[in-house]
């Protein structure tokens, strides 16, 4: 498993959204993506769920750390 961290705090919209979509496309099965964001990217969450990803949000001092992983496949 490897963790890729991307800081999108200096990007104006729609930069963070584009960067996140590009990064999750390259994410391996067990990898996780950490987004450092200045606010909660609510519109992104719906898209992540649709693409089969889960997310977890942690509040940092004034910023947000969003950890994104592929949703585990359920056993048949």
């Amino acid at each position, binding site marked *: 498993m490897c963790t890729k961290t991307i800081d999108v705090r*200096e990007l104006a919209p*729609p930069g963070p959204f584009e960067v996140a979509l590009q990064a999750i496309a390259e994410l391996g099965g067990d990898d996780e993506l950490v987004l450092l964001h200045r606010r*909660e990217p609510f519109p992104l969450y719906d898209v992540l769920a649709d693409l089969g990803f889960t997310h977890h949000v942690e509040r940092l001092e004034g910023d947000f750390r969003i950890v994104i992983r592929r949703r585990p496949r359920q056993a048949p």
Partner: protein
Amino acid sequence: MMPLPLAAAVALEGVGRGPSADGLPPFSVPLRFFLTAALFGVVGGGLLAWSGAPAVSSRWMPQFLAVTHLMTLGVLGMVMAGALFQVVPVLGGGGLPRARLLAHLVHPALAGGTACLAVGLGSQSPNWLQGAVVLLGVAGLLLGSAVAVRVARSRAPALRPIRLALLAGVAGIGLGIWMAAASAWPAVQFAYRTWTNVHAAWAGAGLGLLLIFGVAQQVLPMFHVTPPFAARVAQWLPRLHVLALVLMVLPRPWSAIGCVILALAAGGFALAGLDLLRRRRRRRRDAAVLAWQGGLSAIVVALVVVAVAAGWPSASTVGWWFVVELPVGVLFGVGGLGTILIGMLTKIVPFLAFLHLQRAAVHAGKPAGQVPAMAHFLSDRIAHAQVGLHLAAGVALVAATFLPTLTTGAGLLLAADFAVLFAWLARAAWRYRVAWRLIS
């Protein structure tokens, strides 16, 4: 025949269907409000041009009252209502309850109510005012309740400032509806001259300014990569702002003290916003930055004049206040609130179009690269021309309050300003529709 904004919205209605977990309604929902706002601006400017110099001879002139409400309710109110449908889910993670149905009810009620009010005030006709009271009451109650429910449920800090704006809106709009009812039905009593200033203060400096300041706390750092507002500024100045509005209801000297506190609180917030823009990390001075800078500066100047007038002995009864009250109102409404809202439209309309198309591309399994860039929906050149034209119209209107012979020209400039707004909004809607068809 179907009204143009509604037709454009209906054309987009098939676009973006499907439930959204984060409550983002289809692009057609805010767009119908924005298109209608632009049309009200064209009508307001046209009416001012047609009325000419007599319209600006006093704030109580029927034509001036009609134009004022076309611009405040018709333009500012429409844009704010439309923006709430999209801004609340983007900032708070969850949309207004039953957003699509709500928009279907609020939009015609607000548009019809504003039209009735403008005709009723312009012609002094009680029947039109009765219609306005009913329709605006329905629109205010529905939208106000929906926003209140959503904000009360949310834990998102970004939505907290909207609570104070909502409180001011209930008072300001409620007073306005009561005043219209008193003109429409003789049985309803109301002391107009006493309460008109309170109505204007709570609706304009209350709802309008608090909502813009609340949104500014999110939008300035988000779109222009500025540092955030200092915690003390964000927490305390809006509360002081509301305290000032409460004091302004009381007799002198409390009302005068309220005006001075308002200038300090709201003027301080505007200056803090200007300072953040100066320190922005994204150095590009796009049209929205120009609009924020122009609008916030106009608000500061207007508030300083109000504070000086409030502290001036007997300014409320005689003297120079009567000379400056009209230009100050125009500077605040058109130059301040109007410029900021138009600047925000140049940012949020292309952003929302892009966002909805990106989500549609993901849902359809299409590559994100198929989605046109934000500039496809509004170019920098047109955005700058729009903000520049609006600032020129604002300067011309303020000048017309001193030199009434300029009124017709200023009115035409204002109508042209909103005609340009309508044109690029309609083009953005069309380009969105074309892109949507390609993607889905």
